[in-house]
């Protein structure tokens, strides 16, 4: 009905125009772009999924280049200044593995070992799996000399997502401070703890899922 469409003199080369006019060419072009589009998005999706699970799963092949020297925290050595766990609400753990109340902390950062409340290598509240309900006890327990093997084994198998953290750790004390903190291993559904009662773990496995 309408006016016939005026035929424009083509400025596109004839061959190209002919080619583009062909239905199968268009179909091929479209098909290729669709395939490219789908594969790239699917690949990305897949990668996302894989990366998410990587945070949980451990890659047996990968070893993080840790450089922890365990002998530094040796309790036989005399030290005048102590590092400690800083953050505690009432308790604090020094680098010799003593747990004391904050009020019994000496000016050099060490626990006053002469007060009865100070104890070394305390595993109170810690479960068999290596998870504790009190951070300070977790650190203290982790500083036990016999935990060295366990920690080395963990470091050799640690997930890639912890690479940043555990390659920066330098000695047994720093390792225990870092290892006992809650991390991506401690949560399920992102916003809830796997086990709110025992969430600080020096051991290899994440906290056991607490029943809802």
């Amino acid at each position, binding site marked *: *009905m309408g*006016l*016939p469409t*005026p035929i424009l003199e083509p400025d596109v080369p004839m061959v190209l125009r002919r080619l583009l*006019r062909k239905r199968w060419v268009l179909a091929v072009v479209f098909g290729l772009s669709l395939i490219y589009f789908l594969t790239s998005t699917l690949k990305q999706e897949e990668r996302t999924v894989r990366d998410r699970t990587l945070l949980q799963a451990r890659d047996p092949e990968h070893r993080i280049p840790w450089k922890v020297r365990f002998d530094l925290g040796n309790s036989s050595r005399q030290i005048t200044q102590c590092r400690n766990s800083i953050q505690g609400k009432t308790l604090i753990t020094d680098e010799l593995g003593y747990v004391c109340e904050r*009020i019994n902390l000496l*000016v050099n950062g060490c626990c006053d070992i002469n007060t009865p409340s100070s104890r070394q290598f305390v595993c109170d509240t810690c479960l068999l799996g290596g998870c504790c309900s009190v951070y300070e006890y977790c650190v203290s327990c982790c500083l036990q000399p016999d935990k060295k093997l366990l920690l080395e084994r963990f470091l050799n198998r640690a997930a890639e997502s912890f690479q940043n953290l555990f390659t920066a750790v330098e000695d047994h004390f720093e390792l225990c401070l870092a290892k006992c*903190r809650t991390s*991506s291993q401690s949560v399920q559904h*992102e916003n809830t703890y796997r086990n709110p009662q025992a969430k600080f773990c020096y051991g290899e496995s994440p906290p056991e899922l607490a029943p809802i």
Partner: protein
Amino acid sequence: MTSPRALWLFSIVALLGWRLPQVGSKREGVSMSPEVLHCPNCSQLTLKVEFSTKVVEHEYIVVFNGYFTARARSRFISRALHDLDALVWRIMPRDNPASDFPSDFEVVQIRQALPQGLLTLQDHPYIKRVTPQRMVFRSLKFVQTPEPGSAAPCNDTRWTQKWQSSRPLRRTSLSLGSGFWHATGRHSSRRLLRAIPRHVAQILQADVLWQMGHTGSGVKVAVFDTGLSEKHPHFKNVKERTNWTNEKTLDDGLGHGTFVAGVIASMRECQGFAPDSELHIFRVFTNNQVSYTSWFLDAFNYAILKKIDVLNLSIGGPDFMDHPFVDKVWELTANRVIMVSAIGNDGPLYGTLNNPADQMDVIGVGGIDFEDNIARFSSRGMTTWELPGGYGRVKPDIVTYGSGVRGSGMKEGCRSLSGTSVASPVVAGAVTLLASTVPNRELVNPASMKQALIASARRLPGVNMFEQGHGKLDLLRAYQILNSYQPQASLSPSYIDLTECPYMWPYCSQPIYYGGMPTIVNVTILNGMGVTGRIVDKPVWQPYLPQNGDHIDVAVSYSPVLWPWAGYLAVSISVAKKAASWEGIAHGHVMVTVASPAENTSNAGGELTSTVKLPVKVKIIPTPPRSKRVLWDQYHNLRYPPGYFPRDNLRMKNDPLDWNGDHIHTNFRDMYQHLRSNGYFVEVLGAPLTCFDASQYGTLLLVDSEEEYFPEEVNKLRRDIDNGLSLIIFSDWYNTSVMRKVKFYDENTRQWWMPDTGGANVPALNDLISIWGMAFSDGLYEGDFAMADHEMYYASGCSIARFPEDGIVIAKTLKDQGLEVLKQETAVVDNVPILGLYQTPSEGGGRIGLYGDSNCIDDSHRQKDCFWLLDALLQFTSYSMTPASLTHSKSRVAPPSSVSEHPLPERLEGNHLYRYSKVLEAHLRDPKPRPLPACPHLSWAKPQPLNESAPSNLWKHQKLLSVDMDKVVLPNIRPYRPQVRPLSPGESGAWDIPGGIMPGRYNQDVGQTIPVFAFLGAMVVLAFFVVQLTKAKSKPKRRKPRVKRPLFLQQLQQQPHTGRTPSV
């Protein structure tokens, strides 16, 4: 031949569609894409195209069966009209480029239009039809749509579309579209002159500190954001970049992280505060703005290990119940990391504070513009952690420039952005610079820095503390205070003056009186002496006898341990019985002593102590009459977090969660102000209904309640109403099918989220009101209507299913939204009963008013308010005055009988309300009510009267002890004079980009979006040309077989709607 076009269009739509849903993701509250993305056409002007047509006399269009040359056409017409000699006709000349080509029609002028002339024309074999010529008039109109309603058309009304994921969901609707512009004075102003925002560091006079040689050196700053590219020219001291996301890159693909880092530490062009500070870049957001709590946990651990001093978090979300995250933030500050975080971009609505900025140990930063107005987007209102029993804390802590601030561009150069996540790095940069000025770094900790910032902040006039906190950042005063700082405790707010308006809103908006619910002020104790501390003995209440301090009773509750660096001190104030009919002002103070283990003394067991006074000033009035007193039930209002409580207005799909607290001082603030201005006294009940003396109150207000009721509450309320208490209920929707429909998959928790109630818990309400023969239905209605000369909008509400026969019921015509949600069908229902008024029959019994929708008194997403209706209902309940406009309304219908066709809603099977409920507890099959808890009991502090008077001006009293402002001398402090020049039109866009910045809300880099759009545009153009080409080439081809052609056209014409040629 149409298939290529359709396919191309499909692929483009697919491309677009694929990108969009990915935007709104993750970490609690990382917000969604900007509003503009969701409703690109959502301007306040609507273009309306109207057209009218008119028949042109004596002219006819003759349509042929095919394309013929002009000569052929003329021949056909003359032959057709050959028999009618008398006819005067001529062919109207058409002078256009197409006239050289064959055409299929002709315009003919026939003077004496005879029916048979037209008929003979139509008889000609080559002529298809003859129609009168019409002239078409088209007109364009710009229609001003009413502003409050503008949100409605913006939201997608197709229900098939999946709701977007959970936590990130925050308000994006009303606040940004119009608000941003207002905040920057762009639309509001007649101002032609405006201060050109030079570099924000200079406006805050950082150059004074730079000249003194302080540039942030030696301070480790962590930027938790979208990363930073390696060789950005603005940064000289990037110590480390780490990636905590699942994308294998360290670079910033969005520009947000670069901007934030630039505000803190850029050294050239748009200069940051602390160019020599040590930057640690933590990439915790993907380019799709995805982030997970677990990424943050690991990254935070690394920040602790690296002994970061200052950490900027320009992120936030509503989920303060994310315990792993909240605990981790506490752990960070406990390790002396000074956390600075953005308060959120969800203003101007109250109750919109974001976590972690709402934590006591974090410096929460709000935004202002360069004219010292609170930026409209800045989140505000009290914290909602403490509801329903307590009262929220004051947040943000301070405000600073967050609108049109210049910072580093993604690759190079500078750009401007707005949002509280711009304001946050301004403070983080200032804190970094300040920390580097202190010789004894031991003194700098999260508490002392916060104390210095809030003690030095400049209060903005006319703004309340729940919007501005302690005021605007003043870098130089903070420098002075910090450099004469002695470890001590301080309070935020530092005094309680319930008479001071507007700063102490809402306290100042309602005087206290005997018998009222105690007024609670939730004060934060900041303890600069150590990460942990305690309150020694008990806080002491010392009334000033000369100033009637004995007329008030004070009860104090407080954190058993102040950790980390902070704790609360909740002061409940009540009027003593002897002042029941007294009017006046009473003064006193609360004295608190805080002790912390001393870490620097040689003997173990030493403690540092600090004593602070909290002045209290209140206005007392005689107890108002019962009819004036309204009680707001807070106890039965539940909200997100922790559960999924859906929004009351189902159209607001971008914000499906009800998370603003549902308190009269958060999202029911306007309603509260309205009631106050009408002389009502509104009190809040944060305990079960069994815990109030009903003889004191005229009306109990139950609005949008999600909680269940204890059986004891139901019984008590019945007795109360028999004894003269009145009840007003604003209900909301509850339909189990719709609830199942609005479930969504939350990517953060990787779970399906099913709502635990509807907009309100209608089954529970029905249990409460069934004794009076009343019930709400499970219907879901929506629509505009007029009631008593007021425009009303019913936004997803229910109807009244049962009502006593002697009650007054008003019905309206509404749309059945349930049907729309479930089946995408539109149905209009007449006579939906939505309002009911009832006088209970017992002697002196109270009255009951029911309304099916709460959205019109709620500030969030409200389109048309109905405060007039609340007034009318209160007139009815308080004074038994039935509004004539309602009783004599034509909409009045007979009350729905108890045998209604609408079934009453049943509780959604398998709902998890018991997990969040204070009333229910899990039971084998059905959750059962818990035993009724004891009513809260305040133990009033034993007063220790003082025979002295209060200082005259409370807020100017010393906020920090032993700080001598004169001791620290600043070299050559020049007052900064903003450079003012006329704003040229082209310039504004350069730095006035709207769009918040909390990730997800901010502008995408222009440089990044342009290629995307250019690419898409090119695709469209390409597709168009391809279609044109194929079309053009096929035309002559088809024209060749002339014989077939008319046939084809004819067939096509006969089937105009199917669009396909019949195959037979």
